[in-house]
């Protein structure tokens, strides 16, 4: 319980990290990518597709390299990702969010597919739950009409940062510690707090 109070105080006292202008810019940028995707979907517009490609393809290649794949494999999977972007542009739901998230999920699925085909082991992130099981399971009832609404912004920035580094940037706990200039113990502690907080948020609030 004390953690919950501490977290609320933390949120109340933490400075606003994102200036409104950068949020606006992000939205404007995303709308631009959405417009490109719509043109690809509706008129197979190659110029819009090339704009998306020029921005995202080199990043996607980096994404695959970071997964431990060779330059050649990364180039091939980047191409396959964009073939799917072209083919499934129609399926992107503009109201659902960011184009970068949609492209990320395509790339992630290409990676998983490739790993399966080549019998590679998917690298998992070290679990911090007490039970080192694959999964400890959660049990809760949701009250009627209860919706998950953006809960990531409710996490303290320092916890969110560690989650992003460890889960999405593929850094080991030690490398995340080095990158953030904190100790290994602090990384583990923050992940544990983040997982606890997320678990509470999932159940319907802190």
């Amino acid at each position, binding site marked *: 319980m004390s953690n919950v109070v501490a977290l609320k105080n933390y949120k109340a006292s933490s400075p606003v990290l994102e200036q409104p202008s950068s949020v606006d810019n992000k939205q404007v940028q995303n709308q631009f990518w959405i417009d490109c995707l719509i043109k690809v979907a509706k008129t197979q517009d190659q110029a819009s597709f090339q704009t998306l490609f020029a921005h995202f393809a080199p990043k996607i290649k980096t994404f695959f390299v970071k997964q431990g794949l060779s330059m050649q494999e990364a180039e091939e999977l980047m191409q396959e990702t964009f073939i799917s972007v072209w083919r499934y542009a129609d399926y992107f739901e503009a109201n659902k969010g960011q184009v970068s998230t949609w492209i990320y999920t395509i790339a992630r699925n290409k990676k998983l597919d490739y790993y399966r085909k080549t019998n590679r082991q998917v690298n998992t992130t070290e679990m911090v739950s007490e039970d080192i099981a694959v*999964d400890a399971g959660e049990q809760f009832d949701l009250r009627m009409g209860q919706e998950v609404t953006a809960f990531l912004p409710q996490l303290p920035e320092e916890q969110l940062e560690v989650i992003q580094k460890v889960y999405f940037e593929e850094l080991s706990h030690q490398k995340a510690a080095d990158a953030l200039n904190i100790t290994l113990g602090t990384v583990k502690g923050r992940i544990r707090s983040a997982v606890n907080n997320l678990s509470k948020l999932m159940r319907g609030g802190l």
Partner: protein
Amino acid sequence: MSCNHHPAVESLLQHASGKTSGLQHLMIRLHCKVCDHCDKVVTEFESLGGETLESLSDTPLQVGAFQALMKRIQSNADVTEVDSNRSDYAHLIEKILGREGKADKLNWHWRTKRFAEIPLPTEDKGFDAKLIYFKKGMKVPRHTHRDKEYTLVLSGAFSDDSGEYKRGDYVYKTSHDEHSPVATSDCICLAVTTQPLKFTGTFGPVLNWFLN
């Protein structure tokens, strides 16, 4: 529709960041098909993936990469679609969950009059997977698990001392959980265990020998 029994938040994070594979991936993916709540949680985690992607530096592409890509698209090159290669039973399980499957036509191995199973081949080392079918009223003898058991309810429902489990529910039991589930309606589950079940009732030793 939402469920009452969910994967742990850490598993959803692993799933969103592309670190689940095989049976675990299948179970979480299917749970999210039924559970809007977890589906939204995963989508929100995926947005971190999108943000990370945006923050990555550029790796130079091969010369003429875009032209090569357009050539492949125009020639309709065969590209492996994300799900085309998945095992047949994943497809089958999804159909049962989607209420499209004709589950009774499957090649069930009837162990008793009211209990049947189909062992599933798996590439996940150390895991056993099967589809199980219990008819309404069937009570599974009291048992613990030698290690871990994950169950995804595909249709119908069952209950035990800790509650009722319905379509889409993701149930996790360990060697500490002793239970005797009863099917409250005809129930089909995907069950993944790390070790065979261990029956603990009076007839436990016989059942252990007979069923395992």
